[in-house]
């Protein structure tokens, strides 16, 4: 299952016509203790680069953007009771939402694991 990354520190797992989205370990580390995640509603249409979710740490609220265009099919219900999953397991259990993939070409502009690691090392 290929995983892509954005320069805004979202990751996206692609499985067939569906994509799972979360924020990277680097991102959660920068945010600190996460106390609340506001997820998009199921059925919401997201535009690539547009607002998708909001993650609240103790100190601030930060926007999470949609890495691609598509429709939200599921939100991670576990985050309601346990937003700290984003800190403890950002790239596994702490996923944010699943969405459809409207345009596969959009994936091509995203980074792979190696490119993202190099990107973060340069920050």
């Amino acid at each position: 299952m290929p995983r892509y990354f954005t320069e805004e520190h979202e990751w996206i797992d692609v499985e067939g016509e569906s994509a799972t989205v979360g924020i990277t370990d680097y991102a959660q580390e920068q945010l600190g203790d996460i106390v609340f995640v506001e997820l998009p509603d199921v059925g919401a249409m997201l535009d690539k680069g547009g607002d998708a979710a909001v993650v609240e740490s103790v100190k601030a609220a930060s926007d999470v953007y949609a890495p691609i265009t598509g429709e939200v099919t599921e939100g991670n219900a576990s985050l309601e009771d346990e937003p700290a999953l984003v800190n403890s397991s950002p790239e596994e259990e702490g996923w944010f939402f699943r969405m459809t993939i409207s345009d596969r070409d959009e994936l091509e502009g995203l980074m792979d694991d190696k490119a993202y690691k190099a990107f973060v090392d340069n920050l």
Partner: protein
Amino acid sequence: MSDEIPEEEIALAALPLDAWHRARGARMVPFAGYEMPIQYTGEQGGIVAEHEWTRTNASLFDVSHMGQLALKGDGAAHELEKLLPGAISNLKPGKMRYSLLLTEAGGVIDDLMVTNTGAHLALVVNGACKWDDIAHLREHLPDEITLTHFDDFALLALQGPKAGDVLESLIPGTGALTFMTAGLFQWNGAHLWVSRAGYTGEDGFEISIHEGRVAELADALVADDRVNPAGLGARDSLRLEAGLPLYGHDLNLDTDPVTADLAFALSKKRRAEGGYHGFKAVAARLAEVESGTLAQRRVGLILEGRMPAREGADVYSGDTKVGTVTSGGFSPTLGVPIAMAFVDSAYAAEGTALTCEVRKKRLPATVSPMPFVPHRYYRGS
């Protein structure tokens, strides 16, 4: 994702302990013209862990960005009293008082601590305000009053229920201080000015020491297993739980002490006699409290759910906007979002049901007494 905290573009100064913080994994952010540690990384780091450590043990905060000033000269106390509503001339040596620098219109220029050291009056002012404060003091104080800025002194805050025992073991005699008293101590040949105060709601101390000796003292403090370093992030969540206003957020030039619910800082005698900048405006606000016509006041809010309401969020009663959040966040101790807000007085009573608007959602909130978490100051055994 993007962080909403804007980066300052001005040149930032380094704290005397800059390298010390970085060596301990501090994440540094711009604040009040300095690069300040907001939190530490590693096992014991993070705002929530540092917050909880402070509530159960003792944390070391670096607050060297604050301004340490001294006033000296005949009648210094009387002259300072002309600029703030607190009684300063009756402040005995070793005693300190929280007060406010006010404009003629009653606006808050800064909040500060004033201590009679015996030798002079010591002022600790907010880091972001210190240059304006110095200008204001210099403009209004007579030339005979000497104003000194101790810009080569660092300021550490040791805060938490174990702070008293820790400091007594390192600097014998400090344990005898009670809340809002201070004294001069010696440690390894260095002079320390130690105040039993802080801004976390916990028992604790602020320690002024020359910048050349501060790393040594910081090392000695964290060598004690009961002490961990903590950053500005935890200091902010602690002071919010303690119901303490923060200048630039809950206090500013457009706010007066009565609306800001700081009437305790208005000395009784001076409420009647006046004689300070802003007295007329303050007296008018106090009269409005009496007659029930005060426009707004600062209140505490506890929100339902987990989504915090931050500074700037509008507060509603039904469809009517009745106020604005001035600072808010998630309370690590209570596990719920809390906030301070300025609301119309008709909605300021404890228990009033209101809502806060966050990203177009209305979050139910209840006006709640402050402090949200009880203060634990040491007032003597």
